[in-house]
């Protein structure tokens, strides 16, 4: 009597693993006709209307709008004729997603359950292991996640049991051993074997024709090191013309941070020229009127702050799967010091005038150059501005400072001919380059930010 059917999360493309119900287009109990839109479902690539493939009635809606579900998960129950609530309950309880995707869905669901519940749930997981396969529950789970058929794995554990390492090995491409061209393994330093010296020391001795008998070893049991050879035989440790400087911890930190940024963040760059005439006029007027004025860069910081408030999707930090949107524009300003690049932060820059920003920035720069910045001076930035204009650099692309989502690079102001009213005029322009993290900021968003920024720069009365 039951003509119950499952409406499940569709799989669009081989890479799709889950989708989100953006909204239901029908309500529970509705009858739908073939072709009618049931729901809007969003995958990581597209948002699609899902239409009914036949006439049916949606007797139970299970999925909630706004939530993500793995491919194959039960979203709703459809029925051809009259059904009781109990029948629907039974159908729901007995439902199992089909295929490997379903398996991984179950495994993921089960793992989520395992993470929060008692050990009893692990038995459930273990119960899934196919009979005749000796494998630890952990390895089994790992195999399910990696989509590996454990029946193809030879176990290396006790009594042929499949271990976590066996699953790991099976998941990696096989490593070819041998079958290459012959190599020479004759030791290069046999003549020097009478001496207890490191391989590096022996090589150095050979290269510089040093008799190791004349070298005093300072290592354990009188072992000769490269430094010993260099010292006793008067040979340079490396070729001349090179001074080896060990990285300071600050330099190492910069190296680490920026390497991480470049390696993991999908950077893209949006560049546009802006005209600075209006801003420069404003500045000149202020100077004339009050005797002093904030620098051009301070004005640019203010415009940046306002633009960040206008396009808050750029004023973010990216943390794993989460985007943190900030209400305050905490702008980190790149400062060059003897020890390396450091970025003190101007907090809530949108609330401060260019004057205030200048006043706050100066002591920060001084402290930065003296090496006396405190942790709170450099924490919590949501956006960075870097200006290499003082070096005449016209255009450059900066590297994003994680966990921020973007960085603005400002070039030198130059006089350049621009089109104006059908003719050519000279005006002061500068290149801006906005580097964005494509995981969190799409091109259009970046573009909107640059537009907003340009407007604030070229219409400074809004400042």
């Amino acid at each position, binding site marked *: 009597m039951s003509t119950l059917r499952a409406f499940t999360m569709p799989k669009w493309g081989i890479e799709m693993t889950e989708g989100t119900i953006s909204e239901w287009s029908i309500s529970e109990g509705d009858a739908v006709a073939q072709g009618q839109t049931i729901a809007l479902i969003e995958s990581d690539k597209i948002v699609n209307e899902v239409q009914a493939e036949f006439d049916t009635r949606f007797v139970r809606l299970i999925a909630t709008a706004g939530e993500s579900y793995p491919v194959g998960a039960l979203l709703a129950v459809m029925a051809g004729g009259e059904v009781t609530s109990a029948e629907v309950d039974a159908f729901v309880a007995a439902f199992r997603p089909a295929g490997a995707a379903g398996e991984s869905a179950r495994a993921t669901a089960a793992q989520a359950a395992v993470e929060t519940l008692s050990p009893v749930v692990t038995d459930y997981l273990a119960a899934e292991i196919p009979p005749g396969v000796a494998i630890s529950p952990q390895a089994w789970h790992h195999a399910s996640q990696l989509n590996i058929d454990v029946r193809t794995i030879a176990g290396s554990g006790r009594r042929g049991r499949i271990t976590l390492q066996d699953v790991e090995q099976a998941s990696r491409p096989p490593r070819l051993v041998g079958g290459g061209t012959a190599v020479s*393994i004759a030791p290069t330093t046999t003549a020097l074997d009478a001496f207890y010296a490191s391989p590096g020391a022996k090589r150095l001795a050979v290269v510089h024709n040093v008799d190791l008998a004349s070298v005093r070893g300072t290592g354990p049991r009188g072992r000769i090191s490269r430094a010993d050879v260099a010292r006793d035989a008067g040979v340079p440790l490396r070729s001349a013309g090179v001074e080896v400087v060990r990285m300071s911890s600050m330099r190492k930190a910069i190296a680490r941070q920026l390497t991480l940024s470049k390696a993991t963040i999908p950077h893209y760059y949006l560049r546009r020229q802006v005209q600075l005439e209006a801003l420069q006029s404003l500045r000149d007027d202020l100077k004339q009127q009050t005797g002093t004025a904030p620098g051009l860069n301070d004005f640019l910081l203010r415009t940046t702050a306002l633009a960040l408030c206008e396009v808050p999707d750029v004023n973010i930090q990216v943390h794993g799967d989460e985007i943190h949107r900030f209400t305050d524009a905490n702008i980190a300003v790149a400062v060059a010091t003897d020890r390396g690049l450091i970025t003190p932060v101007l907090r809530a820059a949108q609330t401060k005038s260019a004057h205030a920003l200048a006043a706050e920035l100066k002591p920060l720069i001084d402290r930065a150059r003296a090496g006396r910045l405190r942790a709170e001076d450099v924490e919590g930035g949501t956006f960075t501005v870097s200006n290499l204009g003082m070096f005449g650099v016209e255009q450059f692309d900066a590297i994003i400072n994680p966990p921020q989502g973007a960085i603005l690079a400002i070039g030198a102001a130059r006089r350049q001919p621009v089109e104006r009213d059908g003719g050519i005029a000279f005006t002061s322009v500068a290149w801006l380059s906005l580097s964005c993290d494509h995981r969190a900021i799409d091109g259009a968003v970046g573009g909107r930010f640059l537009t907003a920024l340009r407007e604030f720069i070229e219409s400074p009365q809004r400042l």
Partner: protein
Amino acid sequence: MAQMTIREALSRTIRAEMERDPNLLILGEDIVGGNGTAGGPEAIGGIWGMTGGLYASFGPKRVIDTPISESCIVGAAAGAALAGKRAIAELMFADFVGVCLDQIYNQIAKFRYMFGGRTTCPVTVRIAYGAGLNCAAQHSQAVYSMLTSIPGLKVVMPTTPADAKGLLTTAIRGDDPVMFFEHKMLYGETGEVPDGEYLVPFGHARVVREGRDATIVTCGALVGAAATAADKLAAEGIACDVLDLRTTSPLDEESILDSVEGTGRLIVADESPPRCSLAADIAALVSSKAFAALKAPVELVTAPHAPVPFARELERAYLPSPATIEAAVRKALAYR
């Protein structure tokens, strides 16, 4: 430089040291041979032929044939050493340390320490070890693993004639007790030996082959097997570092760790049975001091946990070989 066998190198070194130091004496069974027989003294110069002619040159007070009394061979060497002499005790087969283990492990190993550093016991105990000549369970053991673990002893095993000379000289002239292991299969091994004074320091491994793909650490007769395996692999583009430890106490930890830090893959070939063995010791050393450098589990190629069998096929199966060492290298390289 001269070409000679390990047997000759040892023989000449003993003679040279006896000449150099009038306080050196040597004792053991059949060192001289023939005492009390129709043939008279020197009917045989040592079972392995290395002490012939010494009696004629240095006399019965310094070249002493003993009855079959291992405890007294080592014990008398020890007593003479405590009384200011320097002694070489020859025990024929390494397995016989069982008969006199007290003198080795309770006496000579401990005198310096127990007596507060106020004396030395310069005894070199020469023992022939190892399987491969079908001498079966009681005449084939690799006893070095057990003796390496004893504080106070030094354990040495040369694999080339040059090393035989250099290491034996260092052992005799040093003031610490040394267990000097001579592999039965290597007595006939030939090589170049430097003339004149030649000492090889302890705790300094010899690089037999150089490569960046895997490290093979071994000693004794297995050095040759490891080199054979490495050469075969080199023909396929796999380059192994092969280290001949030469001394297991002191151990050249630096060279082992240096090599593993470069290759990330370690294979240890050891003729001892696996429990509490040299192989286990080196695996533990590397796991604890160079874990981050390892790209694959340590591969141990050892004898099985069994006495040495007699039949040729069985002994062949018992010992590590170039084939088993090669297989271990491939296994380590296949690990992803």
